[in-house]
């Protein structure tokens, strides 16, 4: 065999004389495999920890590490304060009213990687003044779907209760919970209070009368279940119609002939 073609180097011959080269590269590949394995295990343990708890408390732990701001707001303009009854107050401070012209607020992203149904619960209350253009709304995004709960000025003192079930899509198993604000300027340009905001993974299906959104089913319906690998193999599956492969087979045959002829010409 020509020494050049195997791996593009003449190391095969040198390597047979000097096992150092092969041993070192094998050790490097083994180290790389160990790094991959460790990276996988580290990520896996995080996922399993999240899965075993089956509950994501949006208001637990250090809030500033999990919640982020978006739009025209900066971190310095937003403050999260815990109130005695366990709820969390979000306050927007702004000197310039321009923040409100862009879509701005705070958000929390939760990975819902264990397939199945999740229950979203919580209570949300916000300062609303329609005449001054102050308000807020809670939004839950997942894939292309979104649920909007707007704070109402009529319900003074009472909050909006959120309780629904969501099954995320297969291709985007993530939910983003955000609170969008609009308002004016000053220390209370916008204000909202969150309480008991949780995402709980449930076993089985949600209660039939409860509001529920099956994004996995929607995705399946949108893309169409035209075939399934388990319903037969690629050659003998019951959905196979040999006729539709005729054109491709002729093309493959033709290309195969060209390969054969070209090989002979080259050799």
């Amino acid at each position: 065999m020509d020494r050049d073609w195997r791996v593009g180097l003449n190391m095969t011959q040198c390597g047979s004389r000097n096992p150092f080269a092969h041993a070192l590269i094998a050790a490097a590949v083994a180290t790389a495999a160990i790094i991959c394995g460790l990276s996988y295990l580290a990520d896996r343990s995080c996922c399993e920890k999240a899965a075993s708890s089956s509950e994501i408390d949006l208001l637990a732990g250090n809030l500033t590490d999990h919640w982020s701001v978006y739009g025209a707001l900066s971190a310095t303009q937003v403050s999260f304060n815990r109130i005695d009854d366990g709820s969390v107050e979000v306050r927007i401070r702004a000197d310039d009213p321009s923040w409100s012209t862009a879509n701005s607020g705070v958000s929390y992203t939760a990975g819902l990687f264990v397939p199945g149904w999740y229950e979203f619960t919580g209570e949300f209350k916000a300062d609303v003044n329609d005449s001054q253009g102050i308000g807020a709304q809670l939004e839950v995004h997942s894939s292309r779907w979104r649920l909007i709960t707007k704070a109402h000025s009529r319900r003074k003192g009472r909050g909006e209760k959120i309780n629904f079930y969501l099954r995320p899509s297969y291709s985007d198993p993530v939910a983003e919970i955000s609170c969008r604000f609009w308002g004016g300027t000053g220390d209370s340009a916008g204000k909202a209070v969150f309480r008991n905001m949780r995402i709980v993974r449930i076993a089985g299906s949600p209660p039939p009368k409860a509001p529920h959104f099956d994004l996995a089913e929607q995705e399946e319906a949108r893309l169409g279940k035209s075939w399934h690998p388990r319903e037969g193999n690629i050659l003998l599956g019951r959905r196979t119609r040999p006729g539709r492969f005729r054109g491709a087979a002729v093309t493959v045959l033709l290309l195969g002939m060209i390969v054969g002829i070209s090989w002979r010409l080259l050799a």
Partner: protein
Amino acid sequence: MDAKGYSPPWSRFDSVAISASIVVATALRFWHLGSPSEPVYDETKVLRQAQSFLRGWRPPYSSHPPGAKLMVALSVFLFGNCPWGWRAANAVMGTALVPITYLLARRLFHSKLAASIAAALLLCDGMLLVASRLAMINIVYITLAAWAYLMLWCFVQNPAARTQPVQLAAMSILLGLFAATKAAISEVGVSLALLTVTLTLIVDGHTRVPVQPPKLIARRVIGACGLIVAVVLLVYLAVFVTYYWSVWRGIGDFVAYHRRVLNRNLNLPTSFPDASPFWSWPLMLHQYAYWKKDLLNGAAEVIMCGGNPLLWWAVLPAILIASIRGCTQKSMSWIFLAAGYMAYLAMWIPLRRYLFIYSYMPALYFGLLALAGALDKCWNGGARRWEHLVLLAPLLPCLILGLGVVWGGFTACSISIVYLLLMRRAEGYDGRFVCLIFMSAAVLLFAYFFPLWIGMPLSQSGYTARMWLHGQGLASWIEYDTVR
């Protein structure tokens, strides 16, 4: 032409260099691979395609063939539908690119040092790192293309005609996979390979003793081109079998799909948020954030679609050096690199649709190889004075933008003085100095920009300091689409 000839014998240095590059590349690509734990940018589209393959649904529309998405599907199948599982296959491909580049540069320049520099440059670039850590299609086609070029150069440097068809077949399979991963760009890669093979066979025929008759040369050229085109098409068709099985009713649908892709691309608008014209890519005028999160603790987590500014800005002088060396020395390696870079940039000239900076990656790859070759020449004393100067020139904007006018200017003056002293007093060391300074600066800048490429939390001031260009127009790195 100097193409023929073996690469230098494999040494301990090669073993150590390639082993180190594998370990470092793996660590950089797999470290915190599952972060961020949500789909980033076009990952959503790729994951939707991958899920459709895994679940037997009709694949959603995509402008690009399904090669890379099948790979992501395999990754999800093996490691689960979680961020690590989405990105593992691409991280493997991104890791493989580094040793492949080492082997390719070794063949192109017949130098272990050039190979080591090429691998180091690849490790120090941000765009390739980001592409390796996200479940998108770019790193897959870049790696397949690099592997195909390696096989191409095995063919070019192989004096034994007997084994050449095997090498061509292997290269064609890789080119077929390349074509089955990325539309348009892959056609340039295949054309480049066809041209190089044709040129090699013609030159080989004329330089052999005895000289081959023109009829035999023509026969071999036709055979080689026929083999490449046919194998590429076969592999391309084979990758599309998933579409055949799920939705297509015949070869007519295959044609209709391509017509639809072409029409959609021709009708795309000329502008789009974060898009930039192709001529601005080498200057890195408009890199942008694939993903950004402003945490309430004041930290910013960002994944930028951009590279190491020193390397990007040094690619242009490197291509200039490659072009001049290619013409004056009639060196096939240099011509290949310069032609490849220009072809991958020139392909965008006739297009009117919006484009993104990540489409510069195939040209950048050629540029980084040329840069490695140029720095190797500096180290070995084979570079001329003007080559030293044009390679040092990109350091100046980096120093001024990074350290400010005073400290940047002071450092630039110090470097110039040391260079002038070495040039006058210790000839031969001036080139080494250029190479060392350049590589040190590249590594430092890599460390500086590293948090921007992997989504590591940065303070707002740290983030702002790294946004070197922040103008109102095209020359801005901080434009971020805030409209949700």
